[in-house]
């Protein structure tokens, strides 16, 4: 199965996800995969100052935009599987926020595709984080970072 027939799995959900189950599903019945790269993004406690992150998203566009990014990755690398899950709602320190899995015959394609997906997810997927602080107050909206734009620009 080459890039032409790859159907990326995209899910935007409030619920947590299970990395092992997702890898098992994306690899089921195949013996041609040589490399599986996963990225899991977690909520950090920011030196115990953070109680939770509130993730707002643009329903519909979030799925559509991640699907567009995934289609670019599938066109660029010889992938066998590609998955992206992004949560919304309230997440606490230690909780999972985002998962990307890329599988390929060889490691370079899997590493680069997962890395690319995350850079583009960060800068193009319509999600916004707001901080809920440990002192009980609601902090500000997290500001976008120049380094994320710079990271995404590596692929152009």
């Amino acid at each position, binding site marked *: 199965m080459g890039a032409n027939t790859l159907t990326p799995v995209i899910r935007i959900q409030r619920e947590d996800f299970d990395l092992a189950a997702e890898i098992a599903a994306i690899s089921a019945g195949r013996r041609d995969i040589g490399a599986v790269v996963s990225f899991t993004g977690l909520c950090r406690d920011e030196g115990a100052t953070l109680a939770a992150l509130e993730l707002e998203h643009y329903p519909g566009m979030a799925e*559509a935009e991640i699907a567009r990014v995934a289609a670019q990755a599938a066109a660029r690398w010889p992938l066998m599987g590609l998955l992206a899950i992004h949560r919304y709602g309230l997440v606490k320190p230690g909780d999972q926020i985002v998962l990307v899995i890329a599988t390929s015959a060889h490691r370079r394609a899997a590493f680069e595709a997962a890395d690319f997906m995350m850079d583009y997810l960060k800068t193009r997927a*319509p999600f*916004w984080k707001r901080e809920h602080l440990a002192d009980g107050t609601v902090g500000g909206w997290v500001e976008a970072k120049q380094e994320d734009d710079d990271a995404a620009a590596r692929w152009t």
Partner: protein
Amino acid sequence: MTQALATSAPAAQARSVRLVYFAWVRERVGMADEQVELPEGIETVLDLVRWLKTRDEGYAAAFENETLVRAAINQTHVKPGASIAGAREIAFFPPMTGG
């Protein structure tokens, strides 16, 4: 997201479009979405932003920095100079911070 797009309406005809706002843009505008009738002469996203800023202080605060706020037409990212012809839904939001 691309089905049933209206073709570009004649400029002289009033156009109805759904505007949606997210994160601090939503908070400053004071609502999550609204249906507006666009006056004549609003051809691009930037035209729309400048018209919205004249409506009240909330919009003015949201779009204080005209190029900071991002826009999407029919759920696809666009630049400020993009034409709004055919737009059903136009979204405004801060730079993304997901992932």
